């Protein structure tokens, strides 16, 4: 094992209870793993050990992604594959979001839960434990949940970084929702180590009728690998809002796996501001009748701050009747920023009355930026309604003229039109206060970056 791997593993293990030992290398038998895989270590003593071994086998069998892989055609996995991330200077912290909100604050520093900086882990209707604490309890419910949705989500397309995450993650949360939870759970990321290579794995289990709002904000590490598994029983509701910012040039792979029971609602919205290399996968299995699953994203990328590449990859499977799914992704790109969208709706045989909707759009603020989209529908039921659309365009000159003719200065008019472009994605945030605050943050960014002449701005 390399020194770097040892160091980062030791750092991460600080928060783990003594019951979990830094384990030996777990490798597959065939084929021979790449050096990075050989260096990985998985906790072996906890109740999730079996799931971790299975994940490691999946990872070794799949191997890390190669640029030639069809699923990585538009996104170069090299920086995600590297043994260690390049250090990233820690930018000044921007004002925290959602400060006015009554919520349960859970602080992670370099991907490690900081109990002292967090609110006590108790709230009505929910039991929250660290992954390590849950792992240390024989017979804990996560033994059956940890890695389960991730494993199921490996077919028909492999997701090696998610398997890697399941195999080695020692940090994260186990959240068991038993009723309607009034206060949102807010995960706040902070950075301290410029080279932190973060692996986080959150497992959410929502019992019938359970309802939770989960928010993630803040600055993650130099590199981030986050997996969220969310299992929604019948009638459960999950609202997930991630406002991932990066004035820093971080890289990362995020996966959210959702299984949605009957009459349940899964809604996930991600706001991404900058970031050098982000791959964000949403894998949603709609398993119960009459349920709803929405995944949405607003992405703002300015290549003048450093290379920008953001990939949203979505796979929604309809396996039940009368369900509705929506994928709404909007990207605003300038100064050579690259946006990618790979979105699929799979309607299984028998999933009648499915209502599937998918839209991916890019607003290019200059000629240098690009948007690559691969929308896919695969339908095996005959009584369904599915639509998909993808567009790439610039600011509408007639709309711009209309606003300016009313006295709105050009820069302000551009910001208004960009917000107009993003509105459909933002509308996926149900809560008025949360939506307003995200809108304000968008506007702040736009006032700084969305000036008409990208090149002039970039060289200024």
């Amino acid at each position: 094992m390399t020194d770097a791997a040892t160091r980062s593993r030791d750092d991460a293990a600080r928060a783990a209870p003594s019951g979990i030992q830094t384990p030996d290398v777990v490798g597959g038998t065939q084929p021979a793993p790449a050096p990075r895989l050989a260096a990985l270590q998985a906790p072996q003593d906890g109740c999730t050990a079996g799931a971790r071994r299975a994940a490691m086998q999946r990872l070794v069998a799949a191997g890390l992604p190669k640029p030639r892989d069809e699923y990585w055609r538009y996104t170069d996995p090299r920086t995600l594959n590297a043994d260690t991330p390049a250090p990233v200077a820690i930018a000044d912290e921007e004002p925290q979001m959602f400060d006015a909100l009554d919520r349960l604050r859970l602080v992670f520093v370099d991907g490690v839960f900081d109990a002292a900086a967090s609110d006590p882990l108790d709230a009505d209707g929910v039991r929250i434990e660290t992954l390590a604490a849950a792992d240390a309890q024989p017979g804990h419910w996560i033994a059956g949940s940890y890695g389960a949705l991730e494993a199921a989500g490996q077919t028909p397309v492999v997701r090696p970084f998610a398997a890697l995450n399941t195999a080695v993650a020692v940090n994260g949360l186990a959240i068991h929702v038993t009723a309607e939870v009034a206060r949102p759970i807010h995960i706040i990321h902070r950075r301290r180590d410029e080279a932190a290579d973060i692996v986080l794995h959150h497992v959410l289990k929502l019992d019938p009728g359970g309802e939770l709002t989960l928010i993630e904000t803040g600055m993650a590490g130099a590199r981030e690998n986050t997996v969220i598994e969310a299992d929604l029983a019948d009638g459960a509701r999950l609202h997930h809002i991630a406002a991932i910012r990066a004035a820093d040039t971080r890289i990362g792979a995020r996966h959210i796996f959702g299984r949605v029971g009957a009459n349940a609602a899964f809604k996930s919205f991600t706001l991404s501001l900058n970031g050098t290399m982000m791959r964000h996968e949403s894998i949603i299995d709609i398993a119960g009748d009459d349920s709803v699953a929405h995944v949405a994203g607003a992405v703002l990328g300015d290549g003048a701050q450093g290379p920008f590449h953001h990939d949203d990859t979505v796979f929604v499977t309809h396996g039940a009747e009368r369900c509705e799914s929506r994928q709404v992704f909007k990207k605003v790109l300038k100064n050579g920023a690259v946006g990618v969208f790979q979105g699929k709706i799979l309607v299984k045989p028998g999933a009648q009355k499915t209502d599937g909707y998918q839209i991916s759009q890019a607003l290019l603020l200059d000629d240098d930026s690009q948007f690559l989209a691969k929308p896919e529908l695969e339908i095996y039921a005959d009584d369904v309604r599915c639509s998909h659309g993808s567009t790439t365009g610039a600011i509408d000159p007639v709309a711009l003229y209309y606003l300016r003719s009313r006295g709105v200065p050009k820069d302000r008019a551009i910001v208004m039109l960009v917000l107009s472009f993003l509105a459909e994605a933002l509308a996926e945030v149900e809560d008025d206060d949360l939506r307003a605050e995200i809108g304000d943050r968008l506007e702040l960014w736009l006032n700084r970056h969305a000036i008409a002449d990208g090149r002039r701005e970039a060289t200024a």
Partner: protein
Amino acid sequence: MLEVTNLQVKLEDEDKQILKGLTLTVPAGEVHAIMGPNGSGKSTLSYVLSGRDGYEVTGGEATLDGESLLEMEPEERAAAGLFLAFQYPVEIPGVGNMTFLRTAVNAQRKARGESELSSGDFLRLVRERAKALDIDADMLKRPVNVGFSGGEKKRNEILQMAMLEPRMCIMDETDSGLDVDAMRLVADGVNALRSPERAFLVITHYQRLLDHIRPDVVHIMADGRIVRTGGPDLALEVERNGYAGILAEGA
């Protein structure tokens, strides 16, 4: 107030001359109508005066209160007191009508060195003026022009005019797509704004709008020029004889 002198305009991307030496004076307090057949350049005149891209001024001048308009950005023209009611008002999803109005009103006030309106003052004003145009609270809340009927869009244009209180109002075929009732509402809105300090230039194909908004002067435009100017009766003559008759007479 508005002085257009020998204005010559071509399309930027095409070698096509549209305005061929247009001269027009609209004094404060007056309502002037411009009528003319399709393709005579009426809409182009309104776009060039308000600063839309895509046109190249090859000669002539246009001033508002002695200040040259043609050098100004569209927002500067608006702050100087020029307003164009669009023939096809633009839909802007995701931007609330109220937010848009308030942004526009305050941007103009700021550009003129005036203090911005408080939320309370703005709300009072917008409610009062919307009511006169039969615009309900729902229309104010909805995104700008999205899902509005043709009549609602035109009334929304007049509401913007009423809120921005421009000194020179250009109306580009505001009557197109309006039924009789909507036309009356729009005309009442315009008439309420008539004042000795304000002037109107009403562009229309048809005489019927001018039954409701009585012009002081009527101009007939053809092939990029004003070819005849007269009193309100000229509009009636157009109605009776058509443009062909008038143009033949003028030739």
